[in-house]
Structures are given as C-alpha cells and as structure tokens.
C-alpha cells in the first residue's frame, strides 16, 4: 500500500493494464500532448495530467493524441473495440458528450444487442464530472444519468483512489462499453492504494459507514459530504449508514434495500440534475421494492433544476453539501409514517 492521489491511482490502473495487455490503447485529445508542437513530447498527459508518462512508456502507437473531434474519437474507439483492441477513450469533460453521444449510445452501447450477441465492445470512456472548479454551465455537469438511462452501457463513478484503481482495471477488462466518470475535484484526494493490480467488480456497492437510523446513498464527491454530515448527526445521536454505489449501471440495489430494511429511512445525495436523475431512480426502486419497510418519505438531495452557475457564491449554493444532507436526514427522522 502506498498513499497516492486519485489521479495517480488512475494512472497506475492504465499503466498496469497497458503492460498486461497490448490491445489496451488510450485515445483522446492531448492524452499525451505535444504532437506537432515545438516543445516536449509527453507534455500534458491529458488536461488533468492523469495519463502523464504513458506515452513515454508505451509510445504514440498506443497513446494516441487526436484532433478535436469527439465523434471520431468515440466512433474510432468503438470500431477498434469491436475489431480487437480494448481502447480507453478520453472525453475530456462529460459536458462534451453532446458532440459524440451517437457513437456511444446508438453504436457502442447497442452492438451486442442489435447484432444478436455476436459483437463485444470492450471500450472504456474515461471522462470528468462535477462542479466546484467555477467552470460554469458547460464544464461542470454530472451527466451520468444520461448514460445510465441507456441499456448496454455501464457507468462507474468512484469516490476515492482505491476504488478508482480497482474499478478502472475492472472496466478495462470488461467486455462491454463502460463510462468511467472521474470527479475533477477528487483528483487530488489521497488514499491508500495497493501497488499491485486488483479488480473491484462493477455492480457492488461499498458500505462506507454503518448506522441504524438512516441510510444515506451518495456518490463521488458527495460521499465526503455524507461523511461530514454523518459526523454532525452522530454528535446528535443519529447514526447513519452511508452507501457508495460506486457504479450506477449496474446498480447494487440489493445492498441499498438491505440497509433500508434496517434503517427504514433513505436519503439519496446526487450531484446530477434532479429531473430523471439518479436520486429519483434509486427512490423509485425503493418506493416499489421496499415500500413496506419505509418509515418516512424518501429524501433526495440534489442541485436545483438549473444549469451550473459560474459565480462562486452561486456555485457553492448549487452544490449539495453536508448541511443540506443533515437537514434531509432530520426531516426523515421527524416524519414517521
């Protein structure tokens, strides 16, 4: 075990997989950087530096810088995936999905089904999500629900370096297209990570904290806020279970429902937009399949139904935080059925 940032954990995962399997390639804008310029090679490693050093080890045949052309990137990666490579394609910000969604959701996601099970598309789309960097409406979204909506895609959202590495390795070895969402504010989060390879299977939630009074489901950056909230609540005698689903498609509803059966109360915290989002998705499942054990209304803590604002004061008000989670938990505690 060494303590590394989430950025480095992800780098390790890619590096180890690229060493293990030469079909693994990385494709994207400035994933190495420096092509056609007057400076260094390996000049960027992606805008967040996650793939730094890979081109030096694996060469430009496998760390493939591209023009700014997301449809061609995603389509090329999908086509390569169905014909023998195992590409990791970088979509710099999930906000850019609008220029390339077709290749992901109508092509990659549907090959297996449309072709009667005769195609596999081992493609990982690495992308960044999340507000907090004051990058406003087109660089701060958490659009994972749009991908979870689509049958044929898997969607991963790690909250810490350990999970990030194990899940990315699992995603790379998986034979289906995976949207791997990295919260940009978490890149510098530190955590213990084994140096060797390990897989965390997609579809298994992590129970981050156990408590009998309420179940809090939270993802990515929201896990940290949920922990903060849980400490505040513990000080008032309220013990929370926190569940981090880690992957939202497949989604480990079993673990969530088991916990709700114990606590009878559910709060879902989600940085995505509220309408047709993940919070409602989980609430809908619980309201159908665990209704009998619920002691109180299901609370959803999300941003408002607005684009992400630029101004720090507005953005801070936009993002769910520990206070709002505490309030939601307290509301469920008051309202007995």
């Amino acid at each position: 075990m060494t303590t590394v940032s989430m950025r480095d954990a992800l780098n390790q995962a890619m590096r180890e997989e690229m060493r293990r399997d030469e079909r693994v390639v990385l494709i994207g804008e400035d994933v190495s950087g420096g092509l056609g310029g007057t400076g260094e090679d390996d000049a960027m490693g992606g805008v967040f530096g996650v793939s730094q050093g890979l081109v030096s080890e694996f060469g430009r045949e496998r760390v493939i810088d591209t023009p700014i052309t997301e449809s061609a990137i995603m389509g090329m990666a999908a086509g390569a995936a169905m014909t023998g490579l195992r590409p990791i394609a970088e979509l710099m910000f999930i906000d850019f999905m609008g220029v390339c969604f077709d290749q992901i959701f109508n092509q990659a996601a549907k090959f297996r089904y449309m072709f009667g099970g005769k195609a596999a598309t081992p493609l990982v789309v690495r992308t960044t999500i999340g507000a907090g960097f004051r990058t406003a409406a087109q660089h701060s979204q958490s659009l994972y629900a749009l991908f979870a909506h689509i049958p044929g895609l898997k969607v991963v959202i790690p909250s810490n370096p350990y999970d990030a590495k194990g899940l990315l390795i699992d995603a790379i070895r998986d034979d289906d297209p995976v949207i791997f969402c990295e919260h940009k504010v978490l890149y510098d989060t530190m955590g213990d990570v084994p140096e060797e390879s390990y897989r965390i299977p997609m579809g298994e939630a992590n129970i981050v904290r156990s408590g009998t009074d309420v179940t809090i489901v939270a993802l990515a950056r929201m896990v940290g806020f949920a922990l903060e909230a849980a400490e505040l609540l513990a000080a008032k005698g309220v013990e929370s279970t926190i569940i981090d689903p880690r992957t939202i498609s497949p989604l480990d509803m079993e673990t969530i429902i088991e916990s709700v059966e114990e606590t009878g109360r559910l709060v879902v915290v989600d940085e995505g937009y509220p309408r047709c989002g993940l919070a409602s998705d989980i609430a809908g499942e619980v309201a159908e399949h665990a209704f009998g054990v619920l002691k109180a209304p299901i609370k959803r803590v999300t941003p408002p139904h607005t684009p992400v604002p630029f101004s720090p004061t507005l953005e801070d008000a936009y993002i769910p935080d520990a206070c709002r989670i505490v309030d939601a938990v307290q509301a469920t505690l008051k309202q007995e059925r």
Partner: protein
Amino acid sequence: MGTPLNHDELITAYGQMRTIRAFEESVNEEFLDGNIPGFVHLYAGQEAIAVGVCAHLSDEDKIGSTHRGHGHCIAKGCDVRAMMLEIFGKKDGLCGGKGGSMHIADLDRGMLGANAIVGGAPPLAIGAALAAKNLGTGGIGVAFIGDGASNQGTTFEALNMAVALKLPAIFVFENNGYGEGTGHDFAVGSGDIGALAGAFGMPVTCVDGTDFFAVCEAMADAVDRARSGDGPGAIEAKATRFYGHYVGDPERYRSSIEVSELREHHDCLKIFRSRVLESGLLTENELDDQDREAVAEVDAAVLAAKAASDPTSSDLITDVYAGY
C-alpha cells in the same frame, strides 16, 4: 478495362452482383406483400460498387455500412439465407432477429453492421483501420457513405482523423443522387463530394459506379496504398438507385423518366454483361448460370425465412451485456 481479377473471380463478382439484385427484388416483393416488417432500403442499381470494392477484401478487412446495407453484406460474403431470416425477424437470422434490415451485421465476415444513423459508420470504420494497424493484421477499414451522409459531421471528422493518424482506411462515397427526397446537387454545397474528400488530404478517384471495372480498379489502387502504410484514400462512385428511398416510397421528388432511364441505360448488370461478352472474358452460358443460381438461392432463402421460427420472449432480455 484493366481488371486485376481472374476468370473465376469475375464469375464470382457477377454472381454476387446478380445475387444482390435478386435479393433486393425479392425483398421488395415480400415487403409489399406484408411479409417483412420495418423500414427497408434497397441496394438495387448500386451492385457494381459493393462488389467492386469488396472484391479486394478478405475477412480481415472490415466494412462499415449504411441503412442500405444488403448489397454490402452479400459482397462481403454474408450468408444469404441468414440475411433473409434476419430481415424477416427470425430467431436464426444473422442477428437473431434483433437487428433487422437496418442493423444486419456479420463480424466474422468483417461486416461491422448496416447502420441506421446516417454518418454512423465512418468513425467505426476508421476504428477498424486503427485496430488492424495496431494489431498488425494487414487489414483495412472501409466505410460506405451515401451522398447525403457525405454532409454529416461524423463523416468529415472521420476523414480528417484518418489522415491525421495515417490509417489504412478507405472511404467509398456512393453518390446515387439523392438523400431521401433531396438531390445531392442541393445538399452537397460544393457540388463535388470527391474533391471535398480530397481536400481533407487524401487521394481520391471518381468513377462511374455502374462500371464494375472502374470501381474495381480504383479500389485496387486505394487498397494498395492503404495496405502499404500510405494512409487513407477515397472513391466517389456515381451511382443509380433503382427503387425509392425505402420500399413504399411514392418517389414524388424524382421523375419516373429518370428512373426508367436509369434502369434502361445505366444498369450495372447489363453493362457488365455486355462488357465481358464483348471482350470475351466470360460466356453467355456462364453468366446465365449465375443468373439462375442467384435467383434459386434467394428463392430458397425466402422460403426458409417464411418457415423459420420467431424469437421467443425470453430472447428479449439477452445480449444486452456480456453477463445477460
């Protein structure tokens, strides 16, 4: 009439073209009789392009196709019976009945799928080219692209990417004059699909798509370049669409004279026939045999399709992920 094909290959080529024609004529009939569900787009009239292009390809080479994909499938060697079953929606169809005409695929033959999204295939085809290059298979990736699809952003992006990465990719523009009910004279602003593709930085050959030999030759050159690592190329083939955009299309946007003129004077099968007979490359008998075999094979496929079983509802939720 420079052709790199030998006698047997010529017969095969003619047989494939003839099979495509017979296939499409049957599909047309069966659709109008209510036996085929969904939307169906026929390739009849364009046979020389698919066959001329695919004559140079092996299973290691991959093609990305269009909504008008039956011809590409047959030229790439897909099983005609399994295709027909697929188009009828049957369980033993090429895609288990889940794809249908617009999503027919056969990865074993290097046929990466018809594509119901206009401009869907070019990015995929360059992906196949990348894989071939990285895996060192010696294969290439080929995209078929309509004149309408030539205006789609995905197509342009694929052209540029292929040049930037010097991929073994070939873009085959099938310009049949129309995208649905809109003429290419209007829709292609430049009026010149080939020149525009060329401006992306690759060699382009423009050919008469009713002339099998011209297509075949242009493709031979492009394939040579691609296989030897010289990067992508393109072909613009002027084509003719014998039927409407889809089966059932009233075709009010084009004159009936245009269509009868095409069928009379620009039928790639007639042209091929007279060319090989004139030059003595093939005999009338050899050609007639192919005609008969094609019809017989397709008829048998239709009968098989009609007799075949549907998928059952348990098939509904398989093939979504590797796990189920």
